[in-house]
């Protein structure tokens, strides 16, 4: 990789972040709020993409990592009186621990069995949340009070419920995870993950410990998803068991597939695409799922590698 192409790649990603920053001042209220949510969920999708797109491991249980961050931070605020920063770290810690344990067990399987095992773990997780409803709020969840969502930085206080602060905090998290992801996929570790995806046995025969690399990918992916979950709780003030349901394990898969698996910007593009198709379709008809389904079928037919996969194949071969 030449210095020129490195500069080009980082320049593109920086430009995307700058555009997203500018949108903070340009978007009307409704879309401003929607985009803040999209940025957090796109971060969730980036975490998913690291494991699915780059390492080739299809999980159907990633909602549990998102929910681990969500509940880790939400419960820490509600019951332990944590501040915003400490609660965010608590959410990350819960995600890291859970993904390590799940990874150690689930990576003993592969293929369809890995999908089933991760889904079973996620189901066990959501049932645990419902079972301990006196603390978790069960199906109804918990609402985090505005007073508990004030971030103190030095002498300054930032109210995370304020739309602009919320948007910029979501953008900061998205940008950090985006550039960390970019660094990972361009690193030795990232290339080994792609090699594992392409042919695990061959990668092992070159002397790579594929289990250790896959476990590291599961943990990193889990931490990114937990970061998104923790941010969601702190920025939107709601912690609910529906975020641990199977629907929230399938959604990041759809976002990544739509945007382009194994592309760094694909999760953002896919999340925006599906969110807006859903939003627009549901404003016209109650049968909006039919329209979303049709859009996905068209995408699979004409751009099976997702939107950015298509762009990379046709026009921008250097897109990471």
């Amino acid at each position, binding site marked *: 990789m030449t210095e020129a192409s490195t500069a080009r790649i980082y320049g593109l990603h920086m430009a995307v972040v700058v555009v997203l920053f500018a949108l903070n001042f340009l978007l009307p209220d409704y879309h401003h709020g929607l985009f803040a949510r999209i940025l957090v969920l796109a971060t969730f999708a980036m975490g998913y993409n690291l494991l699915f797109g780059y390492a080739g491991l299809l999980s159907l249980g990633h909602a549990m990592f998102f929910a681990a961050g969500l509940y880790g931070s939400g419960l820490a605020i509600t019951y332990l009186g944590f501040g915003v920063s400490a609660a965010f770290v608590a959410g990350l810690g819960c995600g890291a621990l859970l993904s390590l344990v799940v990874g150690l067990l689930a990576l003993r399987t592969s293929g369809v069995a890995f999908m089933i095992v991760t889904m079973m773990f996620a189901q066990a997780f959501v049932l645990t949340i419902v079972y301990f409803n006196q603390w978790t709020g069960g199906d109804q969840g918990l609402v985090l009070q505005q007073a508990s969502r004030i971030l103190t930085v030095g002498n300054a206080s930032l109210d995370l419920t304020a739309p602009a602060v919320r948007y910029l905090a979501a953008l900061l998290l998205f940008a950090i995870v985006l550039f960390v992801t970019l660094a990972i996929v361009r690193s030795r570790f990232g*290339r*080994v993950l792609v090699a594992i995806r392409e*042919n695990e*046995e*061959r990668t092992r*025969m*070159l*002397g*790579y410990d*594929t289990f250790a690399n896959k476990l590291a990918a599961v943990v990193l992916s889990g931490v990114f998803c937990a970061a998104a979950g923790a941010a969601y709780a702190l920025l939107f003030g709601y912690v609910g068991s529906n975020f641990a349901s199977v629907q929230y394990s399938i959604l990041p898969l759809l976002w990544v597939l739509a945007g382009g698996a194994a592309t760094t910007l694909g999760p953002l593009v896919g999340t925006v695409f599906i969110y807006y198709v859903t939003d627009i379709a549901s404003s016209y008809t109650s049968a909006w799922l039919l329209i979303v389904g049709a859009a996905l079928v068209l995408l699979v037919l004409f751009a099976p590698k997702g939107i950015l996969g298509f762009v990379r194949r046709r026009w921008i071969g250097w897109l990471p």
Partner: protein
Amino acid sequence: MAELLTINGLDCFYGEVQVLHGLDLVLNKGEVLCLLGRNGAGKTTTLKAIMGLVPAAAGSISLEGRELSTLAAHEVPKAGVAYVPQGRRLFAEMTVAENIEIGLMARGKGQATREAVLDLFPRLRERLRQRSGTLSGGEQQMLAMARALCLEPQVLLLDEPTEGLMPSMIEKIRETVAKLRGLGVSTILVEQRVEAVLAVADRVAFVENGRNRETMTAEALRADPAAVKRYVGVG
């Protein structure tokens, strides 16, 4: 010649089916040893057992006295053995350069190794940016060998490298194996084509029903073509 890789009394199973029955084999330093035998005789299983892909139920596999059969599969290449499987198994979505890079990274090798490997396969140098899945069969075989050689192995295991290739490519592969011998890389070559074996091998081991029935020099085999008929059924 000094012994480099020694296999003693190796038993291997696929499930409950025993494939290798007390197989003995010796690879000397700087030689090309060919395994000949019918389909299902246990040649590929022998290579897989060396690489730790098939566990050894009994017996030993040692490289200069270091036991390999107790190592995890990913540690065998680090011990100095590289494997080019049948069918090449490249990282098809990666470019030629990326395939080589993955090989170099595995043991922290750098530019000097890369250049040495590309000097062996000049055609790959012209195709560095091409996706490996789009290479011809012969070029894919070269890339598979190049990637393995990035590990700078003492022992190279080649499983039917000439399978499905046109004669000019077969000749290039043969030349490369001979060059590697000159560079001190010892090779175990599994081959079906007797004439290809005779062109490059120092010694030939006939594998039948999971046992090494007989090992002879290439010269001795030329003088006794009936041996091929005895163990392989052709000739």
